[in-house]
C-alpha cells in the first residue's frame, strides 16, 4: 500500500477515561462492520458518532426498508436510564403525557416541554422492567433531566455509550430474527419489549422503529455489537437484508409522517428566537398532553394556549404532480402566505408527492386546499410552479403488516 493510500486507523473509543469528547468524532461499536460496507465513504456526524449517510445508494436502502429489511445503527441516539422510587412521578412531571399508562415491558412515545409549553424534544420511553425506564431521543438533554431531579428520589444515568443499538426495519425483519434463533419473537406486539439470551449476554428487543413499518430495535452491550451484526446479516442473507444510512431512514420517516427535531420543530433549548419554537398542540400532539395530571412542565402555559388557541397547525399535504416540494412556501388558493413545508419527498410507496407543513392556524383542516410553490430545475433551467395540495387526515403509507401479530412470514 502506498503512503498516499494509507489511512489512519480508526479505533473504537474508550469511554472509561471520559476523554472521548476530545476526539470530536468517533466510530461506533459497529464501525468495523459498517466501514467495508460503506462503499461511498459518506459519514455524517450524529452526537459525535460517525454515522453513515448512505452505504451504496440511498434509494436502494429505502426499498430494502419497504420490501425486505434494512439495518440502521441507532447507537448515537441518546439513552438515559431513569430509576429509583420516584422514577414514575419524575417522568410524569417531565412529560406531557401520563407515563403510568406505559406498563412494564412496553414502549411509549412522548414529548416534553419547557415551562412555557414549548417542545424540547420528542422521544420514546422504554419501560424495561417494573420501575426501570430508558428515555431515547435524538438530542442530548442531560442538563434538563438533572434539573428535573430536584425534589425527586430518582437516578438519571446517561447510558448512550453503554448500549449499542440497531434498528431492523422492513417486512422480513421478523422472519430474520426468527432465523437468528430468537424464539417467540413473532408474538411480540407493537411497542412491546422482550429480553433474549444471546451469545451469553442479554439482547433486548423492542418492536419499535422510525419507519412506520414492521420493524424492531435491538439493544445490546457494545462488546457484543460485532457478533450481533454478523449473526443478523447471516440470518438475513436470504431475506434481503441491507445496511441503511441516514438518507434512507429519513425517507421512511417522512412517509410514516413522523416529526423530527430540526425539521418540524426547533428544540426549545436551542432556539434563540422565542417565537420560533412550537408547542405540542402546534405539532398535532395534543393527544400526548394530559391535563388531568395536576402538574407537568408547561401545563400552565399549555392550558392557557388551549384556551387562547394555538398559532400553528402541523399538517400532512398530498401535493399534485411529482416534483418534491422541499422548503416550499404554502399559500391559500387566493395566494395568501400561510406557512412552510418542513419535510417533503416523492413517496415511492404512496406514489404521491407528500409533505409535512407548518401552517398558520386556523388553516389546516383535513381536505383544505392550498397552493405550494415549488422551484425545480431541468438541465440547469430553473422553473417555478404553483401546485395544488390538500390536507389529508390519515397516514401517507400505512401497511397493515406493521400492526399484525404474529407478522406474516415473508
Amino acid at each position: 500500500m502506498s503512503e498516499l493510500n494509507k489511512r489512519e486507523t480508526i479505533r473504537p473509543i474508550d469511554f472509561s477515561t471520559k476523554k472521548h469528547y476530545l476526539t470530536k468524532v468517533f466510530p461506533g461499536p459497529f464501525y468495523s462492520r459498517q466501514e467495508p460496507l460503506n462503499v461511498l465513504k459518506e459519514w455524517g456526524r450524529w452526537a459525535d458518532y460517525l454515522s453513515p449517510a448512505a452505504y451504496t445508494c440511498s434509494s436502494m436502502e429505502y426499498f430494502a426498508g419497504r420490501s425486505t429489511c434494512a439495518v440502521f445503527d441507532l447507537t448515537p441516539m441518546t439513552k438515559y436510564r431513569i430509576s429509583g422510587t420516584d422514577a414514575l412521578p419524575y417522568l410524569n412531571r417531565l412529560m406531557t403525557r401520563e407515563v403510568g399508562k406505559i406498563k412494564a415491558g412496553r414502549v411509549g412515545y412522548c414529548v416534553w416541554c419547557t415551562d412555557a409549553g414549548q417542545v424540547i424534544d420528542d422521544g420514546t420511553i422504554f419501560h424495561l422492567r417494573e420501575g426501570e425506564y430508558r428515555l431515547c431521543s435524538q438530542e442530548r438533554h442531560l442538563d434538563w433531566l438533572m434539573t428535573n431531579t430536584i425534589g425527586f428520589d430518582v437516578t438519571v444515568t446517561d447510558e448512550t455509550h453503554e448500549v449499542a443499538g440497531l434498528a431492523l426495519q422492513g417486512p422480513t425483519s421478523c422472519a430474520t430474527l426468527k432465523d437468528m434463533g430468537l424464539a417467540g419473537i413473532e408474538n411480540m406486539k407493537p411497542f412491546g419489549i422482550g429480553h433474549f439470551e444471546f451469545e451469553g449476554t442479554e439482547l433486548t428487543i423492542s418492536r419499535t422503529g422510525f419507519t412506520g413499518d414492521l420493524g424492531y430495535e435491538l439493544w445490546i452491550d457494545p462488546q457484543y455489537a460485532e457478533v450481533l451484526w454478523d449473526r443478523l446479516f447471516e440470518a438475513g442473507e436470504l431475506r434481503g437484508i441491507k445496511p441503511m444510512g441516514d438518507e434512507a431512514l429519513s425517507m421512511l420517516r417522512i412517509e410514516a409522517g413522523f416529526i423530527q427535531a430540526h425539521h418540524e420543530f426547533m428544540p426549545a433549548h436551542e432556539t434563540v428566537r422565542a417565537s420560533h419554537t412550537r408547542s405540542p398542540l402546534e405539532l398535532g400532539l395534543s393527544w400526548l398532553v394530559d391535563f388531568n395530571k395536576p402538574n407537568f412542565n408547561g401545563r400552565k402555559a399549555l392550558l392557557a394556549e388551549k384556551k387562547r388557541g394555538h398559532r400553528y397547525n402541523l399538517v400532512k399535504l398530498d401535493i399534485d404532480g411529482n416534483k418534491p416540494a422541499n422548503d416550499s412556501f404554502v399559500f391559500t388558493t387566493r395566494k395568501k402566505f400561510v406557512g412552510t413545508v418542513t419535510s417533503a419527498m416523492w413517496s415511492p410507496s404512496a406514489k404521491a408527492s407528500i409533505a409535512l407543513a407548518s401552517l398558520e392556524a386556523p388553516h389546516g383542516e383535513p381536505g383544505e386546499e392550498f397552493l405550494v410553490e415549488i422551484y425545480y430545475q431541468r438541465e440547469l433551467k430553473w422553473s417555478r410552479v404553483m401546485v395544488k395540495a390538500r390536507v389529508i387526515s390519515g397516514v401517507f403509507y400505512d401497511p397493515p403488516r406493521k400492526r399484525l401479530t404474529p407478522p406474516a412470514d415473508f
Partner: protein
Amino acid sequence: MTNVIIIGAGHNGLTCAAYLAKEGKQVTVLEAAEQVGGAAITREFAPGFKVSAGAHLLYMLDKNVRKELSLESAGLSFSQLDMKTVALAEDGNHLHISGKALQGAMITTSDQSAYQEYKRFMTRFAGVIGGMHNRIPPRVGTRNFSDLLTLAKTALNVRMLGKDDMREFLRVGGINIYDILQENFEHPLLKGALSLDGILGTNLGPRSNNSMFTALHRLSGLQGMAMPKGGMGAVSDALATAARKHGANIRTSAEVANIYMDGDQVAGVELQDGEKITADAVISSADPRTTFFNLLGARNLEAGFVRKISNIRMRGNTAKLHLALDGLPEFNGLDKNQLGERLVIAPDIEYVERAFNHAKYEEHSVKPVAEITIPSLHDDSLAPAGKHVLSAVVQYAPYHLKQGWDTEKAGFTDLVIDTLEQYAPAIRQQIVHQEMLTPVDIEREFRISGGHWHHGELAMDQFLMLRPVPGSAQYQSPVDGLFLCGAGSHPGGGVMGSAGRNAANAVLKATTRGRDS
C-alpha cells in the same frame, strides 16, 4: 377568598397579617417558634441577659407600616435614635461619624467637605432605590396599566435627579463601593467604616461589584439608626399587637410541615403534628427556597422555575456574637456616652477586602470585621443592674466552611473576642456568657435556608421584578393560591415590613380582580 394562612410570624408575616386582617380577611398566622418575630426577636441568651438575636439596629422600618398600623400605640418606642458611628482605631484615636459631620482622628477638611457631598448624593440616590420599595414590582413585557405606571414612575424618579446626578447615579449604581470611596476620601478609618454599608449582611467585599447598590439599599430607609426599646422583638410585638387588634389569629409553636395541594391549587397547610388547616390562600414569609422546596415540594412546580429557585444566591456570610458582661466594657479612647453608639471594626478598606478574601475559599476571616452595639446602655431591661450585653455583627463567616462549623465555631468565637480585645483590652475577663450564631445556626434557629438574613443576596439581579425570581416577583407564585411575603421578595431584607405590606396589596388585588397576566 376570605380565609388566608400566613406561614411565619416574622416582621413581614405579621405586617402582611395586619393589613389583610384590617381589610376583613380571616387571617391565621402560623409560627414554628414559641414567640413571634422570626429573626426580629429579643431573647434571653443567658440568665437575665437579653439581646436582639438577629438585626440589632433599626434604620429601614417602613414609615407607612409604622403609621398605618399605629405601631407606637401598639407599644413601639425607642431607647435611642439617630445613633452615630464610631470607627474604632487600635490607638484609641477614633473617628466619629454622624449624619452631619466627622470628628476626631485628625480628619482633614477635604475629607470633611467630601463627606458632605457624599452624604448628599448617597441620600438622593438611596431615595431613588427607596422610591421602589412600596410598589409591587412591574412585570416586563406586559401592557398592564399599573405595571407600566410603576415602570414610568421609576424612570421618572431617575430622570428627576437632573442631568448630572442622573449620569452619576447610572455610573455608580452597579459598581463597587471601594472605587467610590477611593475617589472621594483619604482617611482609612472613614473609608473602612463607610465600606460596611455596602457589605454588611452580604456575600460581597468592598471591591465586589454591586456593593454600591447594597450600600444604597441600606440607606434607602432614609432614617437614622435607632434601637427599639426592649430590642428588635419590640417591633415584632407591636406588629403582632396591631395584627391581633385587626382580628388576626396568631398561633405560635405551630410549625408548618408542608403546603398541600388539591389538584393544581393550594388547599392549605399541614402542621408537624399532623393537623391540617384549609385556606383559600397560603402566604409564606419563609424564604423562597424553604417555601418552594421544603414546604410545597419541587415536584409540584415546573422544572424551569425549580431551576431558578435553586440558583438564587442565598448563602449567609454573617455571624452574630452575643456577650453577657459583668460590667461595662472599657474601650480605649471612648467614654460611656460614646460607647452607646454603633462601633465598627474596619480600620481601613483593605482590611475589609482582606477579611472577605477568606470567604471566597470557604474560610472565615482571620481578621474579622464587626459592627458592635451595647444596647443595655440605653435599655436596662436587657441586662441585670450594672451588667451589660454586647451584640456584634461579624464578618466574614461563610455558610459553607471547609472544615465545617462544628469544629471551627469555638476557634472563630475566640478569634472575634481576640479582635475585640485589641480595642477593649479587659473585655475577655468580663464575659459571663457568650453565644455565637454562625449562618448554620441562623439557618437552624430562624429556618432561613442558607442562613442569609436577607433571604437571598440583595443584588441588582435579585431585585425588583427579579426578586426572588421572575415568575414569582409580584408576591405571587406559579401555583394558584400560594403567595410570598418575606424578605426573599422585593424590596428584600432589613427590618422594613415593606415586603409584607406590598404582599398584602398583591393578595387583595388578586382577590378582587383575579389573576391578570
